């Protein structure tokens, strides 16, 4: 298998892999009283 074919396979695998759950992190400010 050529390097080009390997690269194409990896790209397709990466794009079609069942993705794990993502996350969103929001910056926040807490004030203590």
């Amino acid at each position, binding site marked *: 298998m050529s390097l080009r074919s390997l*690269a194409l396979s990896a790209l397709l695998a990466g794009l079609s892999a069942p993705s794990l*759950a993502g996350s969103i992190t929001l910056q926040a400010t807490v004030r*203590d009283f």
Partner: protein
Amino acid sequence: MVGCGNHVDFDNNGVLSVAGAVKSTIGADRKPVFNASPSSVFSTAANFDQWYRDTAGVNRTIATSLTLNETAPGSGMYEYLNSAYFPIDGQGWGNQGNARNYHFTMELHSSFTYRPGQTLNFTGDDDVWVFIDDRLVIDLGGIHPAQSASVNLDTLGLTAGQTYAFDFFFAERHLTQSNLRMQTSIDFNSGTVPEPASLGLVALALVGAGVARRRATR
């Protein structure tokens, strides 16, 4: 004066839900504007103005973050769930003799691109106010047990593809529980984090393609 020592509005022994405690439009400085009549849970506008503003001798400010995790891979639904939301135990003024650091406010500001079908569900205590596009869309003011509210963004008259402000305000004011649950399909512009495995495969592919192209041109 009652209260937690630093501020009369915190643990002043009242338990009362108050709708309309802030105005329906966010202030020019992106803070909620006091709109309540004096009650057992709200004193004055001047006191309220200290909740979300640095005030020497009254509050201490601590930077933190809130991470919402996707509920199922690819679902586009993100959730933060914490039935004991005490992010500053032992920090700021300390726990003041209590098991947890109960008296605090939290605010976060972000933006998002509106897509039809987006929703926001919230459950928590005590006060929660959420503004989208500068308009109050969740109004759970007062000292109270956990309460829930939902927003279907399709009802807000937003334009698909446009970017809007999101401003969130929370206060924990009572020596009991602190619940915080936010579930949303809003894709905040702070960015989703792709999972590393598939990202690595794509990176590997790009490197491989580059090497293959370089070899081919020799």
